[in-house]
């Protein structure tokens, strides 16, 4: 691509103006393909998905608009709790998973960061241990966790062998509890990363502030509660955004860990979308659920990005 480099001296006069014009436009020409790709394959495709959600597409896309029937069905399913519809299960799971995943990751991440920030020997060994799950695919870690949580093989059996025979842990096979196993594996995967974010935040705090608090006689606990944690507010915000968006996007974890759980009881909306679109031939419903996912993420991300970019521009 650099062979287009424009360094040859130009002799002919009309060419000069063309060359200058080209030179001026070059940056935009370079950026244009990427921007066009984004417009078409992101925004165009989103509109396409929105359009499909208003048709009655089944196995193949159909382009006759039939109104918001897919949304009406999803709306009806939202309240169909007995027996639960797949959509009801998916959004209830999303609520449970989203809340616990975000809350536990934040709490655990902060705790680990504070512990590591106590002038620990071996920090260089511990930090990578907490963080490596983030480098692995959910499919890989799902294999490990599946085995770990399997009543006949993993933790339960091991504790039985150690003599604790009354120990019972079959959440992964229980349709009411399977979503909590997804929380465990999800927290294991992401909390180390949140720890790294908090640790970076802690290390960025001005030591003068802490010295001042120290001189005023604050105990370590007070120091953290009153001064350090409030100072970490921007990190909390970033971590929350990251976690919320990862939670809504979670898909592979459910597939790898539970294959959807007994009767689809571990589904999240992302799994619902995939199954309805590609397996159950309900393309319009799948599209409508994708649109709802997108709107949920946008409600969180757009204000955040907007404020970030605005701040940057100032």
């Amino acid at each position, binding site marked *: 691509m650099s062979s287009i480099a424009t360094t040859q001296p130009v002799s002919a006069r009309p060419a000069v103006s063309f060359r200058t014009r080209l030179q001026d436009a070059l940056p935009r020409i370079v950026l244009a393909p990427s921007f066009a790709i*984004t417009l078409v394959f992101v*925004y165009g495709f989103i509109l396409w*998905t929105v359009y499909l959600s208003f048709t009655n597409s089944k196995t193949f896309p159909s382009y006759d608009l039939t109104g918001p029937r897919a949304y009406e069905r999803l709306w009806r399913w939202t309240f169909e709790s007995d027996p639960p519809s797949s959509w009801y299960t998916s959004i209830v799971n999303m609520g449970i998973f989203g809340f616990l995943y975000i809350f536990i990751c934040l709490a655990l991440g902060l705790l680990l960061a504070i512990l590591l920030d106590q002038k620990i020997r071996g920090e260089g060994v511990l930090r990578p241990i907490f963080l490596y799950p983030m480098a692995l*695919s959910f499919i890989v870690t799902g294999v490990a966790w599946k085995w770990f949580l399997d009543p006949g093989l993993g933790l339960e059996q091991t504790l039985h062998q150690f003599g604790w025979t009354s120990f019972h842990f079959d959440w992964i096979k229980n349709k009411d509890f399977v979503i909590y196993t997804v929380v465990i594996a999800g927290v294991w995967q992401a909390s180390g990363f949140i720890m790294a974010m908090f640790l970076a935040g802690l290390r960025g705090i001005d030591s003068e502030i802490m010295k001042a608090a120290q001189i005023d006689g604050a105990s370590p606990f007070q120091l953290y509660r009153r001064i350090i944690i409030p100072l970490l507010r921007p990190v909390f915000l970033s971590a929350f955004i990251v976690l919320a*968006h990862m939670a809504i996007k979670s898909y592979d974890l459910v597939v790898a860990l539970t294959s959807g759980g007994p009767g689809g009881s571990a589904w999240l909306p992302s799994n619902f979308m995939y199954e309805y679109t590609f397996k159950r031939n309900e393309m319009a419903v799948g599209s409508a659920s994708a649109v709802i996912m997108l709107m949920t993420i946008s409600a969180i991300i757009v204000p955040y990005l907007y404020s970030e970019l605005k701040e940057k521009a100032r």
Partner: protein
Amino acid sequence: MSSVASSAAGLAHHAHPGNRGRWINRVVIYSLLLIFAIFYLAPLFVMLVTSFKTMDEIQNGNMLALPQSPTFEPWVKAWGETCVGLTCAGIKGYFWNSIKMVVPAVAISTILGALNGYVLTKWRFPGHTLVFGLMLFACFIPFQSVLLPMATILGSLGRFGVTLQDATGFSFGFGNSTVNLVFVHVVYGLGFTTLFFRNYYEAFPTELVRAAQVDGAGFFQIFRRIMLPSSLPIIVVTVIYQFTNIWNDFLFASAYAGTGDAMPMTVALNNVVNTSTGVVEYNVNMAAAMIAAVPTLLVYILAGRYFVRGLMAGAVKG
């Protein structure tokens, strides 16, 4: 940075009255850290030891025990013999599929990201914030919202490929699953790579670029001679980030190459693990999972610092 931290932590120490309280405090901190370290290491440990055990030992032994007579058999079998769906030729072919997909996808998206970042910081034009904002938002969309249209487009490209094949005897990559996945990963990775380079070049002194311009250097010359030589850190960060993401992707892979010979590693692994016929060979499954994990683990071990930086850059925007 770390000196600030240590002085801060040092301060926290002095606050403790008495040596005894401080000692207990230390013990509590170290035990907690140790317990958590075990929690984080346990799955990898179990995976690793199980992959070296015989089936006999797995059924009768303890999950946490070290293998009595370590065997490479499961690894050999996972690599070359285990069944993925109906074909029983191991996962090696799928491993190479992933490599063939990852290398071009990472290279192309990184180069485009570098150019985009360069334009968006050093050759600004009216509306550059909007352009960047739109590309940035693309990083956060749930891919479910583009999955179906992309499937439709890839389907028609595939039919076009067949036509080409009939007409010219060569499909030019149209309809090839690996090519499709490279394309998809480049398209949906552009936002991230652009973000990384933009934020990096933002801090790069614009005066240098202007000075080179005055000296008559052109757009690409400045990029090649001035920007690129100082971009190594961000290139490493971007390559690692993209490599990990694309290697680990499952959604696109299963939607666009979910069956057949072109499956990437993650899809093949999921198939191996979920094959329900016959006795489940846990040791082979674990070995296959380890093989799938090796590339990203290796990257993490060799360049963990850059890996973390990439995650941070993707998390803390602006």
